[in-house]
């Protein structure tokens, strides 16, 4: 039996989210990092370039002229057989959009650290999930963190997930801009050798630099094979549904912090549930604790892996609930509802469940969402049994 004392001891430190990610990058020691600074990710790049300047990593750091170039350089480095990483946010991720598809389609296990930021206009540097949701169909694995500790842990696990031979897909993990990116939290940083042991070495099956086995990357691919290559990408995503929790368990056996695709909180006997991505889960947990003290059967389902979307796990966790509110921190203009809601609704419907449901958009452009507002959502849910509420509700928008 594993006991607490058998876990690797980390060093407790106070770090903000950006520095925690930079610290994980230092420990991973990628072959190439190509990045361009953008608020609220800047501190990651700034801190990491200090590590480079101080000789604390062996990384080739490429100070590129744009995010499009950053991702392109990562693609080249990864095709050459190296571990390549970048970090970005908001408009930077939008500028990368075209090449994110190239990275995924070429099956390059690049790791990207995304500090979520809204998309302009009007100009806004604060948090929402429009940036990562904007690339949700590009073929990248997407993990969302609730805490800075999770962001640090995800930054390490992302390397293993991306490079897993069954997966071979680029992986982004996200942390909410400012809320996590610039806030201090006490986290445990693992010893360097433990991180290096956990990630191991990357042995690419094909490499542009392997001149004895010449390979063509990125050729033309038309009507006769393109669809088959897309089918393979879908397979990689589906296999990631097994690989992500497998690596999360392995990480847990080492550190005591286990990770899956989703995390239920007070969910088993709950009648009413909230589903969410990212740091808002912390606020929801506070409210759940408070309402539980008043004997209200409420719970939370935190979705860690948005891509691939774990439909079976979500349906298992939510099947039989009386009403469910799904919180989206992004917006799909003209859609019937928003990205997370549509996934949850589809998962439940295809598994034969038709609970009452409502979609709440919250926190756009960095709008604070407070415990009393989450309480309001649980109060609404009690009246929602058996109906899927339309239209979408907007938390905290002033009339």
């Amino acid at each position, binding site marked *: 039996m594993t006991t607490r004392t058998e876990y690797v001891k980390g060093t407790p430190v106070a770090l903000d989210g950006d520095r925690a990610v930079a610290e994980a990058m230092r420990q991973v020691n990628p072959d190439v990092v190509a990045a361009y600074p953008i608020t609220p990710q800047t501190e990651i790049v700034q801190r990491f370039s200090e590590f480079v300047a101080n000789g604390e990593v062996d990384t080739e750091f490429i100070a590129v002229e744009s995010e499009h170039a950053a991702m392109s350089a990562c693609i080249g480095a990864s095709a050459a057989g190296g571990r390549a990483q970048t970090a970005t946010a908001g408009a930077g991720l939008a500028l990368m959009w075209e090449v994110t598809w190239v990275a995924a*389609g*070429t*099956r*390059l296990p690049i790791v990207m650290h995304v500090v979520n930021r809204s998309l302009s206009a009007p100009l806004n540097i604060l948090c929402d999930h429009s940036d990562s949701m904007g690339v949700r169909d590009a073929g990248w694995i997407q993990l969302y963190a609730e805490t800075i500790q999770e962001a640090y842990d995800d930054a390490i696990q992302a390397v293993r997930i991306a490079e897993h031979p069954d997966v*071979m897909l680029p992986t982004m993990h996200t942390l909410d801009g400012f809320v996590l990116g610039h806030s201090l939290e006490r986290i445990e940083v693992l010893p360097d050798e433990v991180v290096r042991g956990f990630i191991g070495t990357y042995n690419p099956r*094909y490499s542009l630099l392997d001149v004895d*086995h*010449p*390979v*063509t*990357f*990125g*050729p033309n*691919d038309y009507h*006769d*094979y393109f669809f*088959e*290559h897309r*089918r*393979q990408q879908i*397979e*990689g995503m589906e296999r990631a549904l097994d690989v992500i929790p497998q690596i999360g368990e392995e990480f847990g056996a080492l550190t005591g912090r286990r990770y899956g695709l989703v995390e239920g909180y007070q969910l088993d006997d709950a009648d009413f549930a909230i589903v969410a991505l990212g740091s808002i889960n912390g606020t929801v947990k506070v409210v759940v604790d408070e309402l539980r003290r008043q004997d209200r059967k409420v719970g939370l389902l935190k979705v860690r892996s948005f891509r691939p979307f774990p439909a079976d796990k979500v349906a298992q966790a939510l099947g039989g609930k009386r009403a469910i509110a799904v919180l989206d921190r992004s917006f799909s203009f003209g859609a019937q509802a928003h990205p997370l809601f549509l996934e949850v609704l589809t998962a439940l419907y295809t598994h034969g469940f038709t609970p009452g449901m409502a979609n709440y958009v919250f926190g756009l452009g960095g709008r604070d969402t407070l415990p009393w507002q989450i309480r309001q959502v649980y109060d609404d849910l009690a009246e929602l049994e058996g109906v899927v509420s339309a239209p979408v509700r907007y938390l905290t928008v002033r009339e």
Partner: protein
Amino acid sequence: MTLKGWREIPIGGLIIDAGNSKEYETGSWRIKRPVVDMDRCSHCLICWVYCPDSAILVEDTRFAGIDLVYCKGCGICASECPRKAITMVDEAQARKGDHDDHQD
């Protein structure tokens, strides 16, 4: 050429066998076919230099015909030939001719 299923091909569109473009018969794209008037041809081989599909056949440094398995009918050879020895003709018509020849 038999098309393979998604489980049988390398991921990411990678081409792992160097030189396998030979398996790709670009001749199937052709809607115009180059026909050479050998009375005008001076064997300068400018067409060989320009042909993007290596479809100009050469024997003993002399023009020896066109490889229709790979000639995609782009017409570059006809455009570049200094002797105006190459004419692009309708592929469907030319095929009918091939067919009639066979029956003869």
